[in-house]
């Protein structure tokens, strides 16, 4: 069980947009946290900073006692790799390798542990690795689609494959960036159910960015609200306050603060 703590994290993009304005919180191991906030509140940027896909401008992010920001800045590959092995990501747009098979996509979850290029692909991989990938695929209920190309699957199925990829990676922390925003309500529910079941049965820490309040309250243990890069709410899900919530999605947001065009995919 590894702790995750975030201290005074700021992120300013080269074009001057400030995505994060001194965000601080500590996540307890095994906690199911939902990051809430409208588009541009900094949810995505924060998750990307935790995994090191983005380098925060200042502050500290400790994953397993390693400062990710420091590791990124010093190009400390080993430290960054240790962080990444422990933080699995689920993306809004799935990010599968579309013209490869489903099983191969799951197998790529273990790339961080694979040095030999021959073993990266399902033809050359060790039998037990292939069996594990198959088991992960079975866990998300898609074992029968193992041989299909990833781009022949529906959105919900693709997100399940992406979850199987995270299972294969076997991290302690799961970072989910709007995992159901590209899905219809029904398959969105199914994906959330599956993600939370898996997180619970493996006792993983999860930080999930969402913008649907209802779903956030239903699944999260703890809700953290972001607005323009600041934490404006941090509360257990069962003690949520209507005032705070309305503040989170204030209509005057666009007027009081200049537009922060974020949720960047650089």
């Amino acid at each position, binding site marked *: 069980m590894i702790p995750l703590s975030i201290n005074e994290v700021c992120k300013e993009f080269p074009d001057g947009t400030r995505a994060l304005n001194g965000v601080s919180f500590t996540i307890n191991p095994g906690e199911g946290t939902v990051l809430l906030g409208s588009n541009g509140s900094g949810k995505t940027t924060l998750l990307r900073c935790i995994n090191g896909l983005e380098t925060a401008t200042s502050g500290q992010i400790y994953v397993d006692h390693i400062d990710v920001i420091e590791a990124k800045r010093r190009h400390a590959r080993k430290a960054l790799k240790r*962080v990444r092995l422990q933080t699995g990501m689920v993306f809004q747009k799935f990010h599968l390798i579309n013209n490869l098979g489903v099983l191969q996509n799951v197998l790529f979850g273990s790339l961080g542990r694979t040095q030999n290029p021959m073993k990266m692909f399902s033809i050359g991989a060790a039998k037990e690795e292939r069996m594990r990938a198959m088991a992960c695929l079975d866990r998300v209920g898609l074992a029968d689609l193992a041989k299909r190309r990833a781009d022949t699957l529906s959105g919900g199925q693709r997100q399940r494959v992406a979850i199987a990829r995270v299972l294969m990676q076997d991290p302690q922390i799961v970072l989910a960036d709007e995992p159901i925003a590209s899905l219809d309500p029904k398959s969105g529910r199914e994906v959330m159910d599956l993600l939370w079941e898996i997180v619970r049965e493996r006792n993983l820490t999860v930080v999930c960015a969402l913008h649907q309040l209802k779903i956030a309250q239903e699944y999260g243990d703890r809700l953290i609200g972001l607005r323009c890069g600041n934490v404006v709410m941090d509360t257990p899900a069962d003690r949520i306050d209507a005032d705070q919530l309305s503040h989170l999605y204030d209509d005057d947001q666009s007027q009081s603060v200049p537009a922060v065009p974020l949720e960047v995919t650089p």
Partner: protein
Amino acid sequence: MGEQLRRRGGGASGWGGGGGLIILGLFLHGVYIAQLTPERLLSGMGRLGGFLSQAIPPDLTRASNFFWAILVTFEMALVGTVIGVLLSLPVALLASDNTSPNRLVRNITRNTVAAVRTIPDLVWALIFVVAIGLGPAAGILTIAVDNLGFCGRFFSERIEELEPGPVEALSSTGASQLGIILGAIFPCAFPSFVATSLYAVEKSIRSAVVLGLVGAGGIGVELSTSMRLFRYDQALTIIVMIWLVVTASEQVSTQIRRRVI
């Protein structure tokens, strides 16, 4: 502001006018030195008729020799393209913004590839004939270098256009650079790489035909000999065979392309 714009616009059109005059001058001079007079064109037509009357019927007595020479030409194109494509893969990775280790390496690689591409293949063939002598080896090297310039550029452009998503997904698992290249970049770019490579083979077959003219092996040697000995009937046989091989190769590559993409 408006005035400034107008003035700048005027300057630009002034330059454009000067450039246009120069190009017009070059064009007229070109027409003048070509002496492309109607009389010359007419007499040319007459001689073309002479060529055709001597070329038809085509002489098939040496067809089997030509067949082997064409096979050599095709093999030169194939081997040269395969070498060029294989060399292009690492070169394209070094030349692309998103995969190059740093800007210096990227700029050096990109400029080298650009320089290689500016030199026409016939010039490379002349150089390689001097370096390693007459024959198919010079042709293969020429085609490999020519394709390095061509595929290196197109592969690199494709790599730079790739969506960052799959690459980020694999990076986020802790994958090494090699893992990301083999797992995300090559698979995502694969259909485009295949299409470019097939086009490169087609292009190389046509180019290999001509390379023989400067002694770099293949059917071009036979064609040039037949023309010089005024054996137009043999030349026609060769031309028809070239046409068949090029058409056939285009058909095959279209089929492969359809299946891969």
